């Protein structure tokens, strides 16, 4: 298997799907001549030309809506949000048009579109540029939400998302773009809605997505030294959520800690907790704990930014509490 960066895996996925299917095209700010603000779309303009790789004006609402219209009529747009923070301007087109068109038209008009780009905090980008908005998109029927944590997942899931006949919100972690990992050679896809056990364990279940998977894995390593064997479940797709894989893990470990980068109140972790306590109530030996971003806007200051995000120590502390080790 080749070892490539997360960024490159995404690039390969788009390249392969654009080669495979003429109707796939890419648009967004700086995706073409500039090769992408984060270089994820590098070389695509050169290979596919300006007809299929379009630099847009700064009009998130407009070009996302344009993507919806194109998707209603035979194309498969990949719409890049330079960062998902800017998708706040496009939500009407995503929520009222993309997610509902099939339903409102009585099944006549689907919207096979991928909206992708980086989400979450980067390096001191401050309040407006550090938001993890996946929990919002998860709330909306008609959307699918994908949040990969490794280069291999990124490639396989993005290819599936592009082929999916529905609107897929594909959120990448800016800080993972440089992450290297093994990626299978050649053509492959990973089905949406299927979680992966990133680390098997028997004492406690850690549910984490995107960059938090790595925080959970670090914590699991530490915990191993104290003899606590943590299982790390990465849903990979948040909507539809692979509840069965999560529940199986709980039935085995009887304890869970949910880790997410975003704000706690009404975050995806609360939904995971609800699902678990509802469907595995009798298996729980302790309350499910959540480790989340702090419930305040993201500060610019580097030390404060670091305190804002969940880290190994906070995960370990939560595990100690659910295992009554403190």
């Amino acid at each position, binding site marked *: 298997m080749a070892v490539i960066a997360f960024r490159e895996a995404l690039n390969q996925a788009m390249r392969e799907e654009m080669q495979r299917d003429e109707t796939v095209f890419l648009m967004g700010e700086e995706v073409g001549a500039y090769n992408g603000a984060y270089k994820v779309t590098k070389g695509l303009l050169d290979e596919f030309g300006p007809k299929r790789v379009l630099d847009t004006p700064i009009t998130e609402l407009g070009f996302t809506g344009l993507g919806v219209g*194109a998707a209603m009529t035979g194309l498969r747009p990949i719409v890049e949000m330079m960062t998902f923070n800017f998708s706040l301007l496009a939500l009407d087109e995503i929520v009222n048009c993309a997610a509902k068109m099939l339903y409102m038209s009585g099944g006549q008009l689907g919207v096979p579109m991928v909206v992708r780009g980086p989400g979450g905090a980067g390096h001191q980008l401050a309040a407006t540029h550090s938001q993890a908005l996946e929990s919002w998109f998860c709330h909306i029927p008609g959307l699918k939400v994908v949040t990969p944590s490794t280069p291999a997942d990124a490639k396989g899931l993005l290819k599936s998302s592009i082929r999916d006949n529905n609107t897929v919100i594909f959120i990448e972690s800016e800080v993972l773009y440089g992450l290297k990992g093994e990626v299978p050679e050649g053509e492959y896809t990973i089905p949406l809605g299927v979680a992966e056990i990133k680390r098997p364990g028997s004492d406690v279940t850690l549910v984490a997505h995107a960059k938090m998977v790595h925080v959970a894995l670090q914590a699991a390593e530490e915990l191993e030294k104290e003899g606590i064997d943590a299982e790390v479940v990465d849903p990979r797709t948040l909507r539809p959520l692979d509840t069965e894989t999560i529940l199986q893990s709980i039935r085995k470990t009887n304890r869970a800690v949910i880790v997410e980068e975003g704000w706690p109140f009404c975050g995806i972790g609360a939904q995971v907790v609800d699902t678990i306590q509802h469907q595995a109530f009798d298996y729980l030996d302790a309350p499910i704990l959540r480790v989340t971003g702090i419930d305040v806007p993201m500060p610019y200051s580097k030390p404060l930014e670091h305190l804002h995000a969940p880290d190994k120590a906070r995960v370990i502390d939560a595990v100690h509490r659910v295992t009554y080790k403190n």
Partner: protein
Amino acid sequence: MKSGNSSRGAVHVPDASVADAQLVEQQERARHRDPQFLKDLLEKMLLIRRFEEKAAEMYTLGKIGGFCHLYIGQEAVSVGAITPLEPQDAILCSYRDHGHALARGMEPGPIMAELFGKKTGCSKGKGGSMHLFDERLGFLGGHAIVGGHIPLAAGVAFSAKYLNQQRVTLCFFGEAAVNIGAFHESLNLAQLWKLPVVYIIENNEFGMGTPILKTSAIRDLSEKAGSYDMARAVVDGMDVLSVYDGLSEAIERARKEDLPTLIEARTYRFVGHSMSDPAHGAYRTREELNEHRQRDPIKRFTSTLETLGIINQEYIDDLDSKIREVVDQSVTFADESPDPAPEDMYTDVYLP
């Protein structure tokens, strides 16, 4: 009405002389055209009028729910604009969409059934009055968020160009929608990317209860095309032929040159904003409304065709009863159709 200069200032209320002039103007336009073509235009407009009158009746009977926005008074716009289209062309419009659907040739039955929320409705009873769809006819909705479909139309036009389909897209919206950001972003994109789309502002002078003077800093809306270097035109929305001619030009520009156009159609709504809004009172007087009724696009076109000897009273009566018959049948169809089944709630959320 054609030049915008005179149009700044107070809300335009036509006096009789103007009305006469418009009549003459229309006769000039009608002369030397195929009589059958002219009769078809009249028939389509009348069908819309009668359908909407029936819809109002059904709404008051409680057979139609939700918001129901009627098109009475504006028939010439959709009929004049949509008639020049080819079968492969596409249409998007606002929630005030019954007229556009009928003008495109959608059957009255499935439309009425949709208003009734029935399974046989053109959107399976899931969309309702504001969300009519017929993909086969390129009728891509019926959109209820003001301005929300303006970017979609650019996207539909983008597909047409990308797939080389010679397909023109028409996008209709009200004059109050031009103030919203989606209009600005979309028109810039349409011109920048040379998309075959025609944007039609149906200026009926009010957005709900608010007159255009209170919502737009300029009165001559087609001037906004200047911000995008886009071709523009103003047509008399009460004259089906003025609309037809203006649109034919714009549609050709789109089809031949892949260029967008912004068209303002000056029209007027003879009914309330929706069924829950009275025709006059809060924001316009009965007098104002009645003066505008003199411009009734159907009355005017009827008398034009009579004057030209193309139709007579007998023809009109026959046509009207034929149309009433069709509309009644649409009600029967809707009445006799089943509601969606409970399990239908869960379909059409995701495609496999």
